[in-house]
């Protein structure tokens, strides 16, 4: 099953994919373009992995970490499919990051990696934008780079775990204005999904709707206002996002 949360005609609905459309619980069918896509789950605690693909770590001149490098995101930063992300006009270095997002399905504490998938509800796609102009070396990557309003599109679908045969072997791809700029495979993760669930649940409790963004492979390019960015993961979905400038926002 593929599930979505959407806004239609003034109400929020849960929908499932049917006949290439969105089917509401009341039976109505809508096309992709007729709805406003919300993040497919209301995010609980959201973990993000830094440098979790060896090639990407190299690209940023780091060696791969020995222990997972984890940071957290707040609810302000999430945005649904087809949304517009706000880019500060002054920024010189904003880039996308295509990431497989793992949604936790039940409470997890001290889980062993052998059983880790029992705690997964499903998967979706996230674009973990970064604005590197604001990088500082305290609790890096800092929130001003990684937790800005609207800069983490997620969706379109929450794809049930059973639909994805091997989440550790999925192609990832980003295209900017139709041109492919990032390519990778989840098999290149430094710490696998089961290892991450074992690691995090070894010192804290994970809860349903917590999400783990598992990091991004190499292939980062700068993006600017006006760009259409599509992050895509094999079998999970294609997440479209538009970049707009902040120059018309009020202060």
């Amino acid at each position, binding site marked *: 099953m593929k599930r979505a949360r959407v806004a239609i005609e003034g109400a929020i609905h849960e929908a499932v994919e049917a006949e290439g459309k969105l089917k509401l619980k009341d039976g109505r069918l809508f096309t992709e373009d007729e709805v406003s896509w919300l993040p497919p789950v209301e995010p*609980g*605690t959201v*973990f993000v992995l830094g440098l979790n693909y060896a090639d990407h770590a190299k690209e940023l001149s780091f060696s791969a970490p020995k222990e997972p*490098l*984890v*940071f*957290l*995101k*707040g*609810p*302000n*930063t999430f945005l649904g499919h087809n949304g517009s992300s706000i880019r*500060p006009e002054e920024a010189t270095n904003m880039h996308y990051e295509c990431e497989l997002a793992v949604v936790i399905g039940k409470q997890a*504490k001290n889980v062993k990696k052998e059983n880790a998938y029992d705690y997964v509800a499903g998967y979706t796609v996230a674009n973990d934008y970064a604005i590197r102009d*604001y990088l*500082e*070396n*305290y*609790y*890096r*990557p*800092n*929130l*001003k780079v990684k*937790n*800005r*309003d609207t800069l983490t599109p997620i969706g379109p679908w929450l794809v049930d775990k059973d639909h994805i045969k091997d989440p550790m072997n999925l192609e990832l791809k980003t295209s900017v204005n139709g041109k492919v700029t990032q390519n990778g495979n989840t098999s290149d993760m430094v710490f696998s999904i089961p290892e991450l669930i074992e690691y995090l649940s070894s*010192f*804290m*409790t*994970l*809860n349903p709707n917590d999400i783990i963004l598992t990091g991004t492979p190499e292939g980062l390019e700068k993006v600017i206002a006006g760009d259409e960015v599509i992050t895509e993961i094999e079998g999970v979905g294609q997440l479209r996002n538009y970049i707009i400038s902040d120059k018309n*926002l*009020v*202060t």
Partner: protein
Amino acid sequence: MVKIYGRRQEMQQTFDAELDVDAQVVRFHSSRSHVNELRFAVPVIGTVYGTALNYRGELTNMGEKVNEEPYKEPPKAPVLYIKPKNTFRSHKADIPFPEDSDYLQVGAALGIVLKKQATRVTVDHASDYIAGFTIVNDVSIPHESMHRPAIKEKARDGFCPIGPWIVDVSDINNADDLAINVYVNDDLKQSNSTKNLIRDVHTLLADVTDYMTLYEGDVLLVGTPENQPLFQVGDTVRIDIEGIGSLENKAVANSIKGVNV
């Protein structure tokens, strides 16, 4: 009398009440109780953001290190982190003491509770967005390096007691001049004041909401004073903040009694 808000363990709904500070009596609409007779729940439900290095003494303690590797320069923007929901505990709930550490640090923080959505708030208007203030114990496993996010040190279950209540913003004369005292087993271990903040309450709120929206019920911690007291398993930790009250929790080994939110 000060106006307080919060939640009690017996009921889903929030309360608003009046607190007689001297008598430590809470007057609800139709009843009154001594503070010690009440069981408080976590008074907030939103996201809790912590701020590091916002006390002058913390930067003084770091000295020249801020100019060396890996930091290279002193912090420019507020140094922020998130205390996720698994860390929240109420006043009087146990703090589960992890097996892999001998000591924990008390992080005695004034919490700014948001009244409504705050996006790109200016310093002049910041007070309009504050519902009130609460006390937070931002517990950590001691760690020297601030280079990488300290999730493993700061996000353990029970590492963020909050409460007992929120004091209405109108009853706090000057949030930038509140005495903070920390007691471990009734011994005074730390005294400081929010007058030593680098960014005061309104400036911090403006700088944070410049790029990050805070919502009603979110809490922004103003920081934790330098020389954080340590505590061990079995210890009782109490944080007093002037005009707000006392937040007290006990550290318990392998606790399963800690009250979940």
